[in-house]
C-alpha cells in the first residue's frame, strides 16, 4: 500500500497549494459573478448592454490578434535567420533574443514611452527633420499599445519557432530545391507548413499573454485604449465595483479558454503526425 500511494502522496503539497490558492479563489470569483442566478443574469445583461463594455472586449480581442500576427511574423524572420546563420553566431543571437525577457513588462513599456512620448525621440526626430510642425500624439494610441505588446512578445515567438525551424531537415529543403522549387516555393510549400506547430504554440502563448498584459496596456494604452485587464483593475481598485470586476474576470477566463481550445483543435488538424 505504501508503494502504491507514495507517488500521489509526493504531489499532495503542490496539489493542495493549487487547490486552495488558485482553484478555490478563482473559482469563487467566477461563481460569484453568476450568483444568485437571477441577479447574476441581470448583471451580465446590464454589463453587455453597455456599449463601452462591448467596445473594450472587442478592442482587447482585436489588439491581441494584431499583436499575435505581428509578433509571429517578426519571430519567424528572426528564428529563420538564427537557424540559417553560421553556427558560431547562433548562441549570441539567441541570447540577444532572450535578453529582453530578463526585464519586466514595466521596464519594457517605459522604454517605448521614451521613444513615443510627446517629447520623445521619435517626435524630436520628426520635428528636427521638419517632417512635422508640432509633436504627433503617439502615446496612448492603438499604435503605441500594439508596438509595446509586439515588443513584449517577439522574444517568445522567436523561442517557440527556433526549435521547429531547426527540426526541418536540410535534406528536405535541398530535395525541394533540386526538384525545381524556387526560394519562394520552398518557403510557402515546405518551410511554412512544417512550421505550423510552432506558430500555433507561440500563437496561443502570445494571444493569451496580450489579453492579460496589464502593465503594457496601462502605460502605453492608458484610459483611451482601455482593454480588459486595465478595465478590471479600474473597477476593482478605483471604483470598487467588484461585481463588474468579477464579470470582466469571467469574460477574460472564457476568452482565454476558447483561444486555447481553438488553437488546440487547429494544432491537431495541422499535426503532420496525424496526417490531417
Amino acid at each position, binding site marked *: 500500500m505504501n508503494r*502504491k500511494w507514495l*507517488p*500521489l502522496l*509526493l*504531489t499532495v503539497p*503542490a*496539489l493542495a*497549494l493549487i487547490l486552495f*490558492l*488558485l482553484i*478555490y*479563489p*478563482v473559482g*469563487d*470569483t467566477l461563481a460569484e459573478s453568476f450568483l444568485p442566478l437571477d441577479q447574476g443574469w441581470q448583471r451580465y445583461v446590464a454589463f453587455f448592454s453597455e456599449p463601452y463594455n462591448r467596445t473594450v472586449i472587442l478592442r482587447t480581442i482585436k489588439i491581441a490578434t494584431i499583436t499575435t500576427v505581428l509578433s509571429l511574423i*517578426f519571430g519567424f*524572420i*528572426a528564428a*529563420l*535567420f*538564427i537557424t*540559417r*546563420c553560421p553556427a558560431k553566431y547562433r548562441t549570441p*543571437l539567441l541570447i*540577444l*533574443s532572450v*535578453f*529582453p525577457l*530578463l*526585464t*519586466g*513588462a*514595466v*521596464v*519594457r513599456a*517605459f*522604454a517605448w514611452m*521614451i*521613444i513615443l512620448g510627446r*517629447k520623445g*525621440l521619435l517626435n524630436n526626430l520628426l520635428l528636427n527633420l521638419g517632417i512635422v510642425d508640432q509633436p504627433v500624439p503617439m502615446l496612448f494610441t492603438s499604435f503605441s499599445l500594439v508596438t509595446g505588446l509586439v*515588443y513584449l512578445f517577439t*522574444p517568445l515567438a522567436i523561442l517557440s519557432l527556433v526549435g521547429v525551424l531547426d527540426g526541418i531537415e536540410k535534406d528536405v*529543403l535541398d530535395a525541394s530545391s533540386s526538384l525545381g522549387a524556387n526560394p519562394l516555393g520552398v518557403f510557402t510549400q515546405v518551410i511554412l507548413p512544417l512550421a505550423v506547430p510552432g506558430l500555433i504554440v507561440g500563437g496561443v502563448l502570445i494571444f493569451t499573454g496580450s*489579453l*492579460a498584459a*496589464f*502593465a503594457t496596456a*496601462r*502605460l502605453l494604452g492608458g484610459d483611451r485604449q482601455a482593454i480588459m*485587464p486595465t478595465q*478590471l*483593475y479600474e473597477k*476593482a*481598485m478605483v471604483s470598487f465595483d*467588484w461585481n463588474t470586476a468579477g464579470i470582466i*474576470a469571467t469574460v*477574460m*477566463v472564457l476568452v482565454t*479558454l476558447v483561444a486555447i481550445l481553438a488553437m488546440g483543435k487547429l494544432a491537431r488538424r495541422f499535426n503532420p503526425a496525424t496526417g490531417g
Partner: protein
Amino acid sequence: MGRKVHPLLGISAGLVFLFLIAPLVLVLGAAFNDATYLAFPPQSLSLRWFERVLSLQNFMDAFLVSLTVAISATALALLVGIPTSYAIVKHRGSFPSWFSSVFFLPLLVPEIVFGFSLLKTVIVALELPVMTALIAGHTILVLPYAVRVLGASLSNFDFSAEEAAVSLGMHPLKTVLAVVLPNIKAGILAAFILAFITSLNDVSVSLFLTGPGVSTLQVEVLTYVEQYFDPSVAAVSVLLMAITLVVMVVLERSFGLSNVVK
C-alpha cells in the same frame, strides 16, 4: 543549417534584432544621462539618477519586499515542485494522463484575474497579512515553471542508478538526497533562476496585494512612471537588469550554468 542566407532575410532579421535591443539601450542611455528630461544620446554622463533612486525610501522598501517574496516563493515552489516532478516523471504510469496538466493551471488563468481573486479571498475574507498573500500568490505563479524545468531535467535522469543504490542497501530517502538531487542540480538551478526572474518581474498579481508599507518594486515603479516621468525609472530598470544578471552569474559560478545548456 548553415544554408545561404537571402539578403532580404538578413536585412529584415537585422531590423527585428534592432527592434529588440534598441529600446533597452535607450533605457541604459537615459539612466546615465545628466539631463532632467529623457534624451538620447546622453549630453553628459552622471550617476545622479542612481543616487536619487537609492535615496527614495519607498523604492528601497519595495525592493526588499520584492526580494523577500521572490526568494520565499521560489524556495516554496521548489520545495513542493521537486517531489511533484519526481513523482510524475518516475511514476508516469500510475497517474491519469491529464494529471500533470493540473500543475500548469496557473498559466491558463490570466494573472490579473488571479491577483483579484487572491485579494478577495486571502486578504479580504481570510484577513491574512499582505506579505503572506504575496508569497502565496507568487508561489502559485512560479510553480508551473519549476515543475516544467525540473520535469525536463528528471526525464534525462536514469532512475536505474537510484534503484541500484537502493538495492545495495541505501535508504530510499538518502538515495534521493545523495543520488537523485545531485544529478538534477542543473535543472534545480535553471528552475530557480526562471522562477526568481518571473517573481521579480511580476506586476499583475502583486498589483492587488499591496498594503500600508508593503508593495513590490515593479508596482512602485509602475505607479511612479504614471506620476513622474523622469530618468530615475531608467535607473531602476538598469538596476533590475543588473540584479537579474548578477543572480544568473552568481548561480552559474556556484553550480555551473553550462550544465543547463548542455
